[in-house]
């Protein structure tokens, strides 16, 4: 019983870290350098769905959506990479 209780504690402890999260896809970790909490000049990505992020990136890439900077960065990712980043961002509990 003591060992089982220790295991449960270890389990609870592990939940405090990001162990259970899936690894971030290529490029995804960089987004949070600019996109933070809501209320800043740079829009937060928190609460956006994977489809919304994918669509925005596509529009930045094609030039359909005007931008100061995201048009330059969106061009660095293909559709598969963009979709993977969008899905990962949308899955974050407190998305950057």
């Amino acid at each position, binding site marked *: *019983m003591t060992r*089982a*209780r220790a*295991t*449960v504690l*270890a*389990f609870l*402890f*592990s*939940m405090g*870290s*990001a*162990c*259970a999260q899936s*690894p*971030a896809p*290529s*490029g995804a*970790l*960089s987004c*949070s*350098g*600019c*996109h*933070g*909490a809501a209320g*800043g*000049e*740079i829009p937060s990505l928190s609460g956006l769905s994977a489809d919304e992020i994918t669509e925005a990136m596509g529009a930045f890439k094609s030039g359909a959506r005007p931008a*100061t*900077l995201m048009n*330059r*960065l*969106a*061009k*660095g*990712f293909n559709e598969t*990479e963009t979709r993977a980043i969008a899905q990962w961002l949308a899955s974050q509990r407190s998305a*950057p």
Partner: protein
Amino acid sequence: MSSASRRGVLSGAATLAFSLAAPCVIGQARPQAVIIGGGFGGATCARYLNRLGVAVTLVEPNATYVACPFSNLVIHGSRDLAAQQFGYEALKREGIVILPEMAAGVDADARLVRLASGATLPYDRLVLSPGIDMRFDALPGYDEAAAQIMPHAWKAGPQTLILRSQLEAMRDGGVVVMSVPTNPYRCPPGPYERASLIAHYLKTHKPKSKLIVLDAKDAFSKQKLFQMAWEELYPGILEWVALGAGGKTMEVSVKDMVVVTEFDRHKADVANIIPPQQAGRIAVAAGVADKSGWCPIDPVTFESKLRPRMHVIGDAAIAGAMPKSAFAANSQAKVCASSVALLLRGETPASSKLLNTCYSIVAPAYGISVADVYHPARGILADVEGAGGVSTLGASSEVRAREAAYAESWFKTIASEVFG
């Protein structure tokens, strides 16, 4: 609840714990990562590694970090140095051990960091994020003592305040001389942002004064954008002297307040000398710096090409096309943390793309930027073709104002991600 059913619940929980905990090495001693340097690279890496279940000790002698991005606005007089200062309390609260000591060396075979106090610190993986040190042997006349008279202000803190107070004390009609080194150095567009903001200060407060920028290069980051802004905003105040026009500084004399170039001697009222730089000294002591003074790394894992189990991130690293910037250090730190966590579990990290964005403030409400995407290719971090670039030439003042606001927003967000 009976003892039997409780056992059932617990064993169920234990199974779940096992299935989730496998990548976290629970039940064994947690792997130990030591990080040297608590700047944008090191502090980011510490937080991400800690979140990935790795025990992290951060070796950083200073209780307060002073950020370089936006410190040119302190020199300009429109920002307090306090807005640049950050502590490590948030990292401590997350369980990261902060060791307020100077690292003196590394024993690669024994996997030990030697501290200045004589104590040693074992590691499974070591991350060095030591930033830069000035090369006080590189420019005749310019040593540590000379930097008190002719500040470099290329590490934010007391140096920033020396330059600011010298500009404030200068008479109207004075001459400010800036000396800019050749590549590579910390923050490629930084000297030109600083030149812009000093010119703005002179134009606003001491309009008879002049700024001469002596450059050891013929080309620089965001050059067209800067030069167009200078023509528009600071004609007759800011003069840029390229390498080809004799801009390279050969020597300085603190006694005479003179900056000597190939063909000229520039008498200065205020001299800001940005000297050649190298990776922070601990990188040399650890054996991860090559003859250039910088650190060659693997572009996927940031592991040193010279020493196993040591990783180098940020300004100290030779990161191919990536510039030495806070954004780049932050981006590299996250990828490095993921790689280190995987390597500690015996897994192979996958190749990852990285980003950089650098804003420069040319005048109040006038921002410009460079942004790029990088990927490991042919053993280095190369530009992803077709992506990246600088702000549009000839954009409206609304766009410039928006970029200035974005710059401030970026700084708040990254500072909060790293230290908040």
